[in-house]
C-alpha cells in the first residue's frame, strides 16, 4: 500500500527534493527524502533514477556531471518549468489533504 502510494507521488517528491537541495545527485536526493520523512519514504533506490531521467526528459529538471567532490556524479537542478510544476503539485496536495481531513472529521469515533 505504502509502496503504491509513494510511486504515485514520486515525481512530486523528487521535484521537491531537487528544489530543496539543488544541485544534488541521486543518492543525496534519496537520502534527503528518507531523512525528511524519518525513514517513511524508503524507496526501491534503483527505481528513483528512471523517474529522475523522466523528469529531465520532461524538462522539469536539468543535470550535469560534477567532479568537485572527487567522484564524478550527475547532479540535478530545477528548471523554471519544474518550479511551476512543483508549485501546482503543492497547491493540489494541500487542497487534497484539506479535503481528506474534512471528510475524516465527520467520523465521530475518529475524533473523540
Amino acid at each position, binding site marked *: 500500500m505504502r509502496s503504491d502510494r509513494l510511486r504515485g507521488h514520486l515525481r512530486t517528491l523528487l521535484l521537491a527534493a531537487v528544489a530543496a537541495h539543488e544541485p544534488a545527485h541521486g543518492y543525496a536526493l534519496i*537520502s534527503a527524502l528518507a531523512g525528511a520523512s524519518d525513514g517513511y519514504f524508503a524507496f526501491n533506490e*534503483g527505481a528513483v*533514477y528512471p523517474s529522475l531521467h523522466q523528469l529531465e*526528459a*520532461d524538462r522539469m529538471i536539468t543535470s550535469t556531471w560534477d567532479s568537485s567532490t572527487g567522484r564524478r*556524479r*550527475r547532479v540535478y537542478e530545477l528548471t523554471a518549468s519544474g518550479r511551476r510544476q512543483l508549485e501546482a503539485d503543492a497547491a493540489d496536495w494541500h487542497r487534497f489533504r484539506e479535503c481528506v481531513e474534512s471528510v475524516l472529521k465527520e467520523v465521530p469515533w475518529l475524533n473523540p
Partner: protein
Amino acid sequence: MAEPLIEKRIQEIASDIRVRGRYRERVLAELRVHLEDATERYEAEGLPHDEAVQTAIDHLGKSEAIGAGLRPQQTSRTWILAALPFAGLAMAGASARVANILHERGDRLWSSPLYTSVWLIGWLSIVLLCGSGAALFVRHRGLLARTGAAAAALLVMSSITLLVFYFANDGSFHRADPDTWRVLAITSGLLAIAALFAMMRRSRLVPLWPLPLAAGGLLLVAVHYLALHTGSLAQVGLGLLIAAAAALTVMLLTQRPIA
C-alpha cells in the same frame, strides 16, 4: 580501487537493461557512484565492509525494475528516429521538385521511366521512412517521441491520401472541377484525422488530445484542398511541410507529461 561486488552488480545490470550508447554509460556511472556512496554510509553507520556493500546492493533493487523504467529514455535512439520522418520528407520534397520539372517538360507517369522512378522514390521515401519512424516512435514515451509519432502519422496519411488522388486523376494534380476537389479534400482530411487519432491513442498522446486533433485535422483539410486545387507538386510538398510544422507546434504547446 573498484569494489568487486559492486562491479559485478553493475555488469549484471548492464546486461539486463536494454539501453544503449552514451545513455547506457550515464546510467551505469550513476548507479556505480550510488552504490559507492551507499556503501560508505552503511560503513559509517557501523556495518562491516562486506555487509555494507551487500546492503547497498540490496537496496538498489532488481535490475528488471531499473531497466523497465529506463527503457523509454533512450534519447540518442529517439533523436535518430526523430530524423526519419524529416529525412523522408526532404527526400520526397526533392523528388517532387524534380518530378515537377519533368512534368513541365512533358514526361508522364508510367510512359517516362525517369519520371516514374522519381515519383516512386519520392512517395516510397515518405511512406517507408515516415512509416518506420512512426512504428518505432510509438514504443517511446518522451515528448519528442510522442510528437514525432504524431507528425509521422500526419505525413504518412497526407502522403497516402494525396497519392491515391493522384492516381485517381490520371496521374495529375490538375483538375478543372473545384467541387470534386472539395469533396476529395474533405474526405482525405477526415481519413487523416481518423488515422492521426488512432496513432495518438497508441502513442499515449491522450491528454488534451482534442485540441491538436482538431487543429491537425483542419490543417490537413486546408492543405489538401490547397495542394490539390492549385495543382503543383512543389506546392504539395510545401503544404505537407507547413502542415507538419504547424501540427508539431500545436503538439508541443498542448502536450502534458504523462506520469
